[in-house]
């Protein structure tokens, strides 16, 4: 396998492994917890490598997962004391863990193959040279194999526990009463996040792991309401960003993992602006239409209050406290619908308008 293909495939598997767990983080509103975990696994990784006398894969996974779970437990314990709020608890624990990790790396374990840059944005370009050797045989690129296995593992987990996690996310009480412990699922998910972070860490670094988890999932969340589709979109978005990011990075001679995050950011921006269902543009347009309709309703109802059913335009503007343009638009639309007639400077309800007023009042009367 060529070096380029190895790097590209590593990027793709990193993105898909992360996107699979990221979806659940976003719907459970735990993005910043994932950020905290990604930072906090560092000391676990360092001490595990130290004990294993080198960057041993299995030891690393164990150490980092323990550190990840310890972080979640610590944050929760700190919140329970009632002395700090939840955001402060996260903001106290993860910098402390990360600082401990970087301090340990630079002070004592400079031999464990981790330097500050690698921690932050990884060394995905080195993926082809980091070989997995089992029983003296070179199996292939270690990051690639690890991330491929992780993608498969996360996929299996999602398929197996989809229903349980979904239930625990949207109705923790019901899940508990049906015998799926939300606590167990919570810590299970956090374990998956920790293990995935460890796997992707070497390739893309601590902070960009979080990008891979959160950004595609957030993008997908803007596109669909269905959890299953969201997972699919999230993975697709992650993989597309990985491929595009890779080629852009090669072209511009910049960090591959950084470029992957930027590409994801671009896709996110497009979805945030232009998603047909939840995009800012579509939303603003829908609201403008609603607003117009609403203005007409208000105008009719206001006219309905007057015993004569008519009113001068100037008076209307003052009483409704609307800018002229808005009032004119509402009058025009009401006129087009046949609800009002304009007689000189006065606006008058038509018989159709009277009916409309009744309908509006009916619609808005409390059920």
């Amino acid at each position, binding site marked *: 396998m060529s070096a380029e293909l190895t790097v590209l495939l590593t990027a793709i598997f990193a993105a898909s492994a992360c996107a699979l767990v990221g979806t659940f983080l976003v719907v459970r509103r735990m993005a910043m917890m994932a950020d905290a975990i990604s930072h906090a696994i560092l000391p676990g990784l360092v001490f595990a490598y130290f004990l294993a006398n080198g960057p041993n894969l299995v030891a690393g996974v164990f150490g980092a997962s323990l550190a990840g779970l310890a972080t979640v437990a610590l944050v929760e314990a700190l919140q329970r004391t009632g002395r700090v709020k939840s955001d402060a608890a996260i903001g106290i624990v993860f*910098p402390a863990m990360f600082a401990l990790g970087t301090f340990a790396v630079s002070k004592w374990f400079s031999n464990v193959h981790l330097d500050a840059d690698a921690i932050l944005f990884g060394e995905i370009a080195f993926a082809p040279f980091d070989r997995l050797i089992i029983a003296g045989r070179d199996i292939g690129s270690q990051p690639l194999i690890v991330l491929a296995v992780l993608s498969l593992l996360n996929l299996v987990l999602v398929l197996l526990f989809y229903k349980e996690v979904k239930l625990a996310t949207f109705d923790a009480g019901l899940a508990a009463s049906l015998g799926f412990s939300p606590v167990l699922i919570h810590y299970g998910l956090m374990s998956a996040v920790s293990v995935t972070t460890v796997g992707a860490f070497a390739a893309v670094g601590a902070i960009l792991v979080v990008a891979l988890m959160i950004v595609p999932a957030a993008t997908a969340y803007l596109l669909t309401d269905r959890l299953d589709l969201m997972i699919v979109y999230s993975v697709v978005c992650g993989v597309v960003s990985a491929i595009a990011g890779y080629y852009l990075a090669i072209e511009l001679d910049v960090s591959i993992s950084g470029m992957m*995050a930027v590409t994801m950011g671009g896709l996110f921006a497009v979805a945030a602006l232009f998603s047909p269902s939840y995009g800012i543009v579509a939303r603003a347009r829908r609201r403008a239409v609603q607003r117009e309709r609403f203005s007409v309703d208000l105008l009719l109802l206001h006219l309905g209050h007057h015993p004569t059913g008519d009113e001068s335009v100037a008076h209307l503007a003052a009483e409704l406290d609307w800018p002229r343009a808005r009032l004119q638009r509402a009058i025009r639309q009401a006129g087009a619908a046949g609800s009002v007639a304009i007689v000189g400077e006065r606006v008058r309800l038509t018989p159709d308008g009277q009916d409309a007023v009744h309908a509006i009042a009916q619609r808005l009367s409390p059920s």
Partner: protein
Amino acid sequence: MLPGILRDVIFDYTLRNVALGSALLGIVGGVLGTFAVLRRQGLLGDALAHAALPGICLAYMLANSKAPLVLMIGAAISGWIGTLLILRIVEDTRLSEDTALGVILTVFFGLGIVLLTYIQHSNDANQAGLDKYLFGQAATLVQEHVITMAAVGSIALALVAVFFKEFKLLSFDPEFAASIGFPVRGLNVLLTSSIVIAVVIGLQTVGVVLMAAMLIGPAAAARQWTNRLGVMLALSGFFGAASGVVGAMISVTGSRLPTGPLVVLCVTAIVIVSILFAPERGVVWDSLRRRSNRRAILEQGQQP
């Protein structure tokens, strides 16, 4: 004269700059961090710090200068843009604040890394040092930095001094503040800008990755020792300055260890002691009280 005394105490040019610089960042971070923590915006500070990275790189690329003021302005602008985007995402989409923070933090940081590698690969001899903004390196502080930090930092502190009562009410009860006619939106902008300043000042010494700890840690620790906002601000500033100076001194004198992690470890030590042992609010006293209560109940049960 004061400079004379200072020169006697701190004999070395580098050490003096390092001590002054890290004390400054600690004070400003601690004071503004207090408001960030009380308004539950601690993690916004984290996102803001990460979002500052591309601004630093762009400022360097555009101005071709590493003058501290240039980089600080770049950092402040992109930090502000990041903050605004987070607020807009929360306001205009269905995503939660938590997700908005995560998205902006990581994407801006990714952009920062892209720009950083772009600068590095364009074979620019002058570029060395920008990567120090990741973890911070106090040893790179020179007098020019310290003067800039002092000037910019005093703006933030002056704002707090002048608008103390307004910021207090804004943090405690923004709705009441609006009802009595405070321009809440303007005050929010002012306070957030001051927090941006606090972050930007600290970036060179502590780095973008760990800067959040300088906002959150000292404030959380200070809250343990007092029930007065004024005292909390002072204490938080003191805790920040103390950890800044101690961490930076170890970093500069002991080894070439990056400063950020050392400073954060000092902050963390203060936080742990405060949460466990502060009078009244210390967690240890709580559990001791509970235990003695339990014992008292047990003893009463045994001797009816």
